[in-house]
């Protein structure tokens, strides 16, 4: 589904961050990318989503056979790539329900399906929110404004479950969650899993991987994947620390 070859990227007019990454994510798989602070984990997710602060300086990103490195973020999103933000941006003045319906209808339009009106969308939203044990008042709340860290993350998972992307790239979705919230978020991710879908979990800790079992684990350090393995690699990392692989 997603094939990254020798991907190199830099902050625009700034330093190189990714220095040649290879990754092959097949439909049905869950990959975890782990690594110490500053290793390039968040940059990887932003570069895949097309964040304007970064430029690809080498290599290729192929999604379902198409080179997407030059596509703008909206085009990538419409093709089914979802990014769960580490720090979801606050957007005062736009409420959650309105935002989600805009996003949902943008997808419907792209798929040449009928857009849904506010009334029908309300039903979809209510169901998804109850699955994630979210307070109904989230519908009316301004997008990410004044949310606690945990509320923001849960809201990212809500968006993912509504948009049902082919590929979800979740950037530290587990950070800032208490144990109950972590379980709910993990359930949300597990619900998305399926033979047609793929997930990339970017995480600092093993904790989330207790709930969402990855097929592959990669360790990123200084802009390169220095080690790949199965689920057991995460456990070893947890036990021995990153020094174990980076040195």
């Amino acid at each position, binding site marked *: 589904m997603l094939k990254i070859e020798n991907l190199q990227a830099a902050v625009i007019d700034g330093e190189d961050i990714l220095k040649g990454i290879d990754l092959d994510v097949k439909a049905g798989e869950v990959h975890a990318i782990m690594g110490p602070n500053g290793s390039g984990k968040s940059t990887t997710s932003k570069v895949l*989503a*097309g*964040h*304007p*602060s970064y430029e690809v300086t080498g290599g290729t990103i192929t999604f379902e056979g198409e080179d997407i490195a030059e596509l*703008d*973020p*909206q085009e990538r*999103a*419409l093709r089914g790539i*979802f*990014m769960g*933000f580490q720090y*979801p*941006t606050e*957007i*005062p*003045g*736009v409420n959650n329900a*309105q*935002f989600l319906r*805009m*996003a949902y209808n*943008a*997808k419907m339009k*792209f798929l040449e399906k009928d857009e849904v009106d506010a009334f029908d969308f309300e039903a979809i939203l209510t169901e998804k929110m109850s699955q994630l044990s979210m307070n109904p008042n989230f519908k009316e709340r*301004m997008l990410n404004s004044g949310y606690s860290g945990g509320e923001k993350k849960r809201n990212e998972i809500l*968006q993912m479950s509504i*948009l049902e992307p082919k590929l979800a790239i979740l950037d530290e979705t587990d950070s800032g969650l208490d144990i109950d919230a972590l379980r709910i978020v993990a359930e949300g991710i597990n619900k998305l899993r399926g033979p047609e879908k793929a997930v990339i979990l970017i995480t600092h800790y093993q904790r989330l991987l207790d709930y969402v079992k990855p097929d592959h684990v990669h360790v990123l350090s200084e802009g390169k994947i220095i080690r790949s393995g199965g689920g057991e690699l995460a456990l070893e990392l947890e036990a021995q620390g990153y020094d174990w692989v980076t040195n």
Partner: protein
Amino acid sequence: MSENPSEFSGGDYKYGFTTAVDMETFVKGLDEDVIRRISMKKGEPSFMLDFRLKAYEKWLTMEEPDWQFVSYPPIDYQDISYYSAPKEQEKKESLDEVDPEVLATFEKLGIPLDEQKRLSNVAVDAVFDSVSVATTHKKTLFDAGVIFCSISEALRDFPELVKRYLGSVVPVGDNYFAALNSAVFTDGSFVYIPPYVECPLELSTYFRINNEDTGQFERTLIVADQDSKVSYLEGCTAPKFDTNQLHAAVVELVALDRADIKYSTVQNWYAGDPETGKGGIYNFVTKRGKCAGERSKISWTQVETGSAITWKYPSCVLQGDRSVGEFYSVALTNGYMQADTGTKMIHLGKDTKSTIISKGISADKSSNAYRGLVQVGPKASNARNYTQCDSMLVGKASSAHTFPYIDTRNQNVQLEHEASTSKISEDQLFYFEQRGISREDAISAVINGFCKDVFKQLPMEFAVEAERLLSLKLENSVG
């Protein structure tokens, strides 16, 4: 994002066309004789000529103000024509007799005037350069006892009413531009709502400047007699010229006991070339309402999206006890536009209350200033004001300024002021785009969210128009 630069180098001002109509236009210049000729041309009663001449005398002794936060080259008042009108003079009884070119112009602007196409719940007075060319829905209004006509007609048919109220809120010597307007205004709208009548339609005036060297000096007077109610809307556009046109209007509102006036403006004058700053309208307007009666209410809502320079402060004089004044404003500047706008709430009566909600959006190289005065007189015990002033910056080169003034001579008052500044950031837009939403839709959602406290004050169809207008103007300004 658009690939074609011409799409946003002024090309998106879709009202920038001119209409070829046979016009009668005075030669440029201003003196006493020009004023006498205007008055004669319009067949005015003698009190009106006296009013004009008195204003002209005042104007000659006054200096153009320079305290606003705007800058522009000096205006040559002798290089402007003070009268310009489509040639057929008599106001037509039927629209069939109006120059079809003029009708077509309004239709193109989205203001169809003929029977079949006009808006069913809005009565429109259409002003083309200096004169009113058509007023719709006359019969319905007449049956309700409402007078809605051009001010020239009102001077002819209801001179006593006009004489009584004209200049009662904005005196002839009030300020430089109001004095000029009082001397040379050529047309505008007049509204009178009789006691106990709620006006059955929205009333609307649509202003169109067509001629390059003509100033537009219209005069609007709205009187709501006791226990009456009216909602009035003003819209404006102008063609694109490389020169600047002066628009110096005066609007006076009078609300008697328990009367309620709501005045909304969606202003979209040509703002000049966004790349060079050339051309555009100078919008120097005096708008003031007097809550003369007890428990009367005046509410101003404005959406300012155009003009090279905007300089206006729709204000309320809260004279009647328990009267209420409101000001809701969205002012958008982009390109090289400059806006200095806000309000004055003058509390004179007891238990008077005012609300000010101002939303300034500045993009590109523009400058946007809010200037507001809340004044409380010695007799205005229990006066209350709430002011909220929010600015949004789009892009890196724009600026926002806030100048709130408070002047109170009464101890027993309650005044609140809140202010904020925010930005549309690239990160916000990325967030929308990552969810599959286009930049245009994202900007429009953020801006509409920012402005919604003001938009919800507008009549429905105009709120939609205002939202669309803002999105269009900002499309290319972010990032």
